[in-house]
C-alpha cells in the first residue's frame, strides 16, 4: 500500500475509535490500542503512548464543554488528580519494565472487563440519576453545590476510597493507554456519592492530567512516534466531534451489543499476542 494510503488509513482508524468511543461512552484508548497493534502491527508499548495522546485530545475537548456548563467539579477533580498523576507516574515507569506479553495479558483483562460492563449497562431514563438518596454522613465534611441548575447539592463520602481508586486508575491508565474513566466514574458515583453527570464530567477533566503525566514519560523515553500519533490524534478528534453531534440521534443499544462481540473477539486476539 502507498505511504499516503497508510497515513489516511490511520486517520480513518483514529476517526472510527473517536466516533464509536463517543457514541458508546468509552474512552478512545480501549479501541485505539487494538487498532494500532492488531491492525497496523505496532508494538503494544508504542500504541499505548499514542493512545495516551489521543485520550488527552478527547478529554480536553469534552472537559472544556463540561466546565463551561459548570457540571464538572474542578475542586474535587484537582484533589483526586494529585493521586491519579502519582499513579500515572508509577505506571509510566513500570510500563517500560514489563514485557510485551504481560502488557497484552493486562489489556486482554481490560477488554473483557469493558465488554462485561457494556453488556450490563442500562439506558438511563431522562433525568434518571443512580446516586443513592441516602448514604453515610459525609466522611470529610466535603460538600458542594454545583452551579448547574439541574444538579442538586450533594455531599462527598469516602474520600479515602477516592484517593486509593484514583491511584489505581492512574497506574492502569499509564500501563494500558486508557483514560481510566471505567474506574473513576463508578468510584465517584457509587462510592463517593457524586451524581453520575458530575462524576462523568469530573472524570473527563481528570483524564487530561492523568494521561499527560504518563505520556510525558513515554515522550522522554522515546515511546511516542509522531508519524503515528499525528494521524491517529487528528482522526480521533474528527470522529469524536462527529460522534458528539450525532449521539442523540442514534439508538446505540444494538451498536453496544455488536461492540461487546467486537471487544471479546479483540480480547481473544490480544490473548493470542500475550501467549506468543
Amino acid at each position, binding site marked *: 500500500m502507498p*505511504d499516503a494510503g497508510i*497515513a489516511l488509513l490511520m486517520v480513518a482508524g483514529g476517526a472510527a475509535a473517536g466516533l464509536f468511543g463517543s457514541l458508546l461512552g468509552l474512552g478512545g484508548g480501549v479501541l485505539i490500542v487494538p487498532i494500532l497493534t492488531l491492525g497496523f502491527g505496532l508494538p503494544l508499548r508504542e500504541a499505548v503512548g499514542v493512545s495516551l495522546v489521543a485520550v488527552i485530545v478527547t478529554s480536553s475537548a469534552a472537559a472544556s464543554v463540561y466546565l463551561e456548563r459548570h457540571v464538572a467539579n*474542578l*475542586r474535587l477533580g484537582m484533589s483526586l488528580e494529585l493521586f491519579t498523576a502519582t499513579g500515572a507516574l508509577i505506571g*509510566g515507569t513500570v510500563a517500560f519494565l514489563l514485557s510485551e506479553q504481560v502488557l497484552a495479558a493486562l489489556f486482554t483483562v481490560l477488554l473483557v472487563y469493558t465488554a462485561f460492563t457494556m453488556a450490563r449497562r442500562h439506558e438511563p431514563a431522562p433525568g434518571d440519576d443512580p446516586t443513592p438518596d441516602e448514604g453515610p454522613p459525609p466522611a470529610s465534611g466535603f460538600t458542594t453545590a454545583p452551579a448547574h441548575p439541574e444538579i442538586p447539592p450533594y455531599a462527598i463520602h469516602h474520600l479515602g476510597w477516592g484517593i486509593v481508586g484514583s491511584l489505581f486508575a492512574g497506574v492502569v491508565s499509564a500501563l494500558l493507554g486508557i483514560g481510566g474513566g471505567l474506574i473513576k466514574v463508578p468510584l465517584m458515583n457509587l462510592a463517593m456519592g457524586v451524581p453520575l453527570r458530575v462524576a462523568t464530567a469530573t472524570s473527563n477533566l481528570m483524564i487530561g492530567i492523568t494521561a499527560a503525566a504518563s505520556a510525558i514519560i513515554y515522550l522522554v523515553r522515546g515511546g511516542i512516534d509522531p508519524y503515528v500519533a499525528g494521524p491517529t*490524534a487528528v482522526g480521533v478528534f474528527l470522529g469524536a466531534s462527529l460522534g458528539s453531534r450525532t449521539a442523540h440521534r442514534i439508538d446505540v443499544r444494538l451498536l453496544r451489543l455488536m461492540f461487546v462481540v467486537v471487544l471479546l473477539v479483540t480480547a481473544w486476539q490480544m490473548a493470542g499476542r500475550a501467549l506468543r
Partner: protein
Amino acid sequence: MTGAPMPSATGRSGRDLERSVARLLTGGTYLSIGLMAVGVVLMLIDGVSPLAIAPPFDPSTILADILALRPVGFLWLGLLVILATPLVRVAASGIGFAAAGERRMALVAVAILAVIAVGVFLGVVVEH
C-alpha cells in the same frame, strides 16, 4: 486534605475560573489539532509513511523543521501543545485559586505540577 470543607463552586469567581479554564482547554486542543493536521497533510504530500522511523524527540530542531516545512516539526509541536494543555490548565487553576485566597487548592495545583516534574526528571535520568 481530609477533614476540611470543600468550598461551594457556585460563587461568581468560581464560575469565572471554570469558564477561563474551559477556554484554555479549547484553545490548546484546537491549536494542537491544527498543528498536527498540517503535519499530516505534509506527510501525505511528502509521501511519509506512518510506519517509517521518525526522528527522535529533540526540542532544539522543531523550529528548523517547521521553517523547512518538514512534517515532523509540526507533529512534535502539536504533540507538545496537547501534552502541555492539561498542565497549563492546572497552573491557571492554581493561580486562580491563589488569587481567590484558596491556599489549599493552590497548593494542590503546585503538588500536581511537582509530580509531573518528578516524572520528567525520572524519565530523563533513566533514559540517559
